[in-house]
């Protein structure tokens, strides 16, 4: 069993991180935030931040451990962004909204330098915070009951598919108040340098929707389902920006159609797969019955 005495697996702990963490601890600055009058150390971001500081890819989750935050903005950044969101319906996802937010939060005009990505940070914060809000609604428990009531069902009769559909629509409705400025945000998100983070956030949303709906796929379906939900959500967002109806009924109809399409495609693939595996098993069985050593 000498091979069992191998060294521990090399862990993904970058060695150069340690001095920064040590330094960050020693230097964490104290701020007082305006809303709750409490002093707490600003969690100095580990300076060696990964390339995608927001919505980091899902990691090990456990109900016994606190969930990692939806974003990694510091308190001051969050204060500015939260205040700026109030100005988004009037000013859009612009630097004006950010500046007004900074003023509201007690900062100076120049303090928007805290957000290196500018307007895109505001968009990302909107996405991440709405995602958190959606999870909050589900965990309070009222959302699925309402969705079930709309369909005239009991909440336990609600299938995963219906829950996904309901959550997706609910998330789209959250964008209602910024519907008129959302096209600009979509344009920002599709800029070349912003695409990776936008996709990460989209994936995080799709993943959250599926997890909250109780989807427990642990094989390749994990990927295809997230892909499908992401695609449906992204296309519905575009439709929503051009939806003239006040209650988003056109968007809702669009979402329904997309889910039906998805179902149709999935059925076709399942059928094809079954057909192929049947043919293969028959061939192998035939071969064995002829005495082939396979």
């Amino acid at each position, binding site marked *: 069993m000498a091979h069992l005495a191998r060294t521990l697996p090399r862990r993904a702990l970058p060695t150069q991180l340690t001095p920064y963490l040590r330094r960050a601890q020693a230097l964490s600055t104290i701020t007082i935030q305006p809303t709750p009058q409490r002093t707490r150390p600003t969690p100095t971001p580990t300076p060696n931040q990964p390339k995608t500081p927001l919505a980091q890819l899902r*990691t090990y989750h456990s109900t016994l451990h*606190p969930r990692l935050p*939806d974003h990694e903005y510091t308190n001051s950044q*969050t204060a500015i962004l939260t205040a700026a969101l109030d100005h988004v319906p009037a000013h859009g996802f612009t630097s004006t909204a950010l500046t007004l937010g900074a003023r509201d939060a007690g900062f100076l005009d120049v303090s928007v330098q805290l957000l290196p990505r500018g307007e895109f940070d505001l968009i990302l914060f909107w996405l991440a915070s709405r995602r958190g809000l959606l999870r909050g609604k589900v965990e309070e428990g009222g959302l699925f009951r309402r969705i079930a009531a709309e369909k005239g069902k009991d909440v336990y009769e609600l299938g995963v598919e219906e829950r996904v559909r309901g959550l997706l629509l609910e998330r789209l409705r959250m964008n209602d108040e910024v519907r008129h400025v959302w096209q600009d945000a979509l344009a920002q998100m599709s800029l070349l340098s912003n695409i990776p983070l936008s996709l990460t956030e989209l994936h995080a949303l799709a993943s959250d929707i599926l997890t909250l709906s109780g989807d427990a796929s642990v094989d390749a379906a994990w990927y295809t389902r997230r892909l499908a939900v992401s695609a449906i959500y992204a296309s519905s967002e575009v439709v929503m920006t051009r939806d003239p109806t006040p209650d988003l009924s056109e968007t809702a109809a669009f979402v329904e159609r997309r889910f039906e399409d998805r179902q149709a495609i999935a059925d076709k693939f399942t059928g094809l797969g079954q057909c192929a595996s049947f043919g293969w098993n028959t061939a192998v069985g035939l071969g064995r019955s002829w005495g082939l050593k396979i």
Partner: protein
Amino acid sequence: MRNCALKLCRQPMRAPSSVFLDFLAPSTVKYSQCRHASTTAGTAGEPKPRYVLSKEQREFMDSALRVNQAGELAATLIYTAQTPQIVRSYPHLRPLMKHMYDQEAGHLKTFNGLVAKHQVRPTAMYPAWEVAATFLGWSTAALGREAAMACTEAVETEIGSHYNDQVREILSWEADAERRGEELDEELKDMLATFRRIRDEELEHLDHAVANDSKEAKPYDPLVDVIRFGCRTAIKISEKI
């Protein structure tokens, strides 16, 4: 050094920036509150405070569960592909093959459950591993009983040592927790026990394979080396993607 680094990494987690997150993710607040409750109640006789996992430790668990699930998937498929050919030539091996397959299927079920419970991303190479494992099982069985057993030996050696590494890692956390007067949470303790049990079962398969003349396989060294190298590569890949 490692522990020191982990301690430092853990520090930012200790102070969740919940001031402005409250409205975003009520769950954050809820969990951190219940954690604080358990932390303050840490007097003698009371349950010890819970050991908080750092980001790196979460990432380790993430990749560990992903690899284990992929490994058990491959193991079941290897046995599925081997069994018909082996049993046809050596009917007396039927109960052994069935026993090993059943155990592997049980492991797969365990890990499927864990992967779903802890919201771990399954490996993106899932379909590729399915094909590769079936091919490996089928081709070694076609080479004969000894080759099939050599395949089992090689695979179980790698898997067993891999589980051993994981057990050792979690034990090091336990020691770390002990030093701080904390204890691992129930899930981790269960997982540790599960990993140990599964490791022992995998090593039992290894013994069965050796008992069934795996060492007699004709090109023994190249065959085993190639399979072990393949396993190691697959483990490395599955840890990442």
